[in-house]
């Protein structure tokens, strides 16, 4: 019994609900919410180490043994993501304190954020397919509200698109669950994996796998990312950063789980994923170059990285999984920072197009240099966080001879670099337009979370070794689904 496993999800829920009662007390809300995410992160860190020492953790809700009850399964891959998600959310919360404004904060802002975090963590941890659907919905509902909170016109408009696309995705999810249940009669993911392996993944199961591919591609923004740029550029910065850091990652996680645990017997799927990843990266690059709106550019960068992470899945070797794990972590942190920076620029200048902004670095050197650093990190330039993941994925691609994937994924970093370089050169460099008097003061409160994230980015690059045992655990579980299955069902059952 590992009740601790439920804490990263249930703590935010509990505190979130309690905060509803504390609506007028913004300070209390702030403190409690950031404490909650930090506590969740601490729990995740503890679990991560526990898993490293003792193997995969499992919690059967209500003590009903799998496959009959719902359970949380904490493997290193999931737990790493939980850890980073909580840590990043904590930092984003710090940013939110400084920028959101009392008016929005009283709109149950913090409860919704906590619910979002809860949904994300639940999605990472659950070992039941239908429960994954429900966790997704928790996350989605919270994101719907956060996206539209405050109710500005663009928010509402983008909200509609976002909600509708996700409704459709959820529908496909249910469709997949229905089919799976029809064929295999079970919902526990490990149990499904066992049964799929037993029957051999025939064409029908592959067909069903394709439906799940569609579902999670929609969530992850793999090719089906149309909803993403608009909805990521509408909400307040902190929310956008949270979205950029967390939302697509859940879809990516689910893709990894599905296609490393359950539908692993038909290589066609990996080919399809590979093609999708390639198209995503190319289209993402085009999109990132096409716009001059900084928030759009940043959003398309999310798309590129989705494609990049999923090349790891298309390659599907241990080393590629290691790369993907590293890269996912990097991506969560750096995208959060990138979104925060983009938002800060928009906030400081009141403009969002990079060609309308110039010479910011003179007035706001910190923002400028952090942007520069983030740009390098995201482009995978060493020694920052994105680099090591890139190396591993590259090695995996070479190992399996996936040269097209290799080429596109590595060239996509140039697209990333180019798109962000344009922003940097135009907005931060160049003649300073704003006079000393006109410039908005840069609060230290805003600086702190930015610096914290930057420290993580640098630290993760230089201190990559610290994470490597956990990353290896994660990759091992992904590469060898038996570990997961054994942890859930044991050797005796079926």
């Amino acid at each position, binding site marked *: 019994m590992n009740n601790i496993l439920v804490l990263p999800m249930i703590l935010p829920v509990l505190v979130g609900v309690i905060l509803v009662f504390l609506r007028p007390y913004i300070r209390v809300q702030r403190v409690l919410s950031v404490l909650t995410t930090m506590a969740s992160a601490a729990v995740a860190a503890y679990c991560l180490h526990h898993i490293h020492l003792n193997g995969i953790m499992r919690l059967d809700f209500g003590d009903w043994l799998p496959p009959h009850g719902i359970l949380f399964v904490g493997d290193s891959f999931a737990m790493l993501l939980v850890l980073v998600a909580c840590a990043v959310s904590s930092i984003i919360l710090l940013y939110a304190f400084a920028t959101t404004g009392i008016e929005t904060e009283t709109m149950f802002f913090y409860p919704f954020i906590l619910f979002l975090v809860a949904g994300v963590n639940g999605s990472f941890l659950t070992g039941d397919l239908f429960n994954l659907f429900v966790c997704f*919905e928790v996350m989605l509902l919270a994101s719907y509200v956060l996206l539209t909170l405050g109710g500005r016109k663009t928010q*509402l*408009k983008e909200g509609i698109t976002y*909600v*509708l696309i996700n*409704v459709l995705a959820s529908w496909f999810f249910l469709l997949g669950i229905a089919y799976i249940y*029809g064929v295999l009669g079970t*919902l526990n993911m490990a149990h499904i994996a066992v049964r799929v392996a037993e029957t051999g993944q025939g064409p029908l199961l592959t067909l069903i796998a394709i439906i799940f591919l569609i579902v999670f591609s929609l969530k992850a923004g793999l090719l089906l990312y149309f909803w993403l740029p608009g909805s990521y550029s509408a909400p307040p910065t902190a929310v956008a950063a949270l979205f950029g850091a967390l939302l697509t990652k859940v879809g990516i996680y689910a893709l990894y789980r599905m296609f490393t645990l359950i539908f692993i017997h038909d290589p066609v799927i990996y080919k399809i994923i590979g093609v999708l990843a390639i198209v995503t990266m190319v289209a993402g690059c085009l999109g990132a170059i096409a716009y001059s709106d900084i928030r759009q550019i940043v959003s398309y960068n999310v798309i590129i990285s989705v494609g990049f992470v999923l090349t790891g899945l298309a390659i599907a070797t241990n080393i590629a999984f290691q790369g993907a794990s590293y890269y996912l972590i990097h991506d969560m942190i750096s995208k959060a920072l990138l979104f925060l920076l983009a938002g800060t620029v928009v906030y400081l200048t009141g403009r969002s197009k990079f060609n309308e902004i110039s010479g910011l670095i003179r007035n706001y050197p910190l923002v400028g240099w952090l942007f520069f650093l983030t740009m390098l990190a995201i482009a995978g330039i060493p020694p920052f966080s994105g680099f090591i993941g890139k190396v591993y994925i590259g090695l995996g691609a070479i190992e399996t001879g996936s040269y097209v994937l290799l080429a596109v994924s590595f060239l996509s970093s140039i697209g990333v670099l180019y798109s962000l370089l344009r922003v940097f050169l135009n907005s931060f460099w160049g003649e300073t337009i704003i006079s000393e008097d006109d410039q908005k003061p840069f609060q230290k409160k805003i600086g702190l979370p930015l610096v914290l994230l930057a420290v993580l980015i640098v630290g993760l690059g230089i201190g990559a070794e610290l994470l490597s045992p956990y990353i290896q655990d994660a990759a091992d579980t992904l590469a060898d689904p038996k570990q997961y299955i054994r942890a859930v069902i044991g050797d005796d059952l079926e």
Partner: protein
Amino acid sequence: METLITLLVGVLVAVGVYLLLSKEMLRIILGTAILSHAIHLLLLTMGGLKKGDVPLLTETAAEYTDALPQALILTAIVISFAVTAFLLVLSYRVYQESGRGPRLRGRQDE
């Protein structure tokens, strides 16, 4: 029966998708509603139809029909209700923001 219901599901899906491809918010929301009807039926069908008695153990029966899909559908119904409610409000807020005044009364020819 299963086949017939599956066909019905197909029809509902087609109608739902067609509505989803509209411009009008209301049609779209109706489309999502119909799609969720379809998926609920499909979930039930996947567990097998009329394969036993009502899953109440008060009723002594040789066989009970599959209760799990029912529980899942119940959850799905509630979730889809939640989403529909939100979507409805969201869409009318969009119209509100774009400055179209409310109408006061259901029209005759409706």
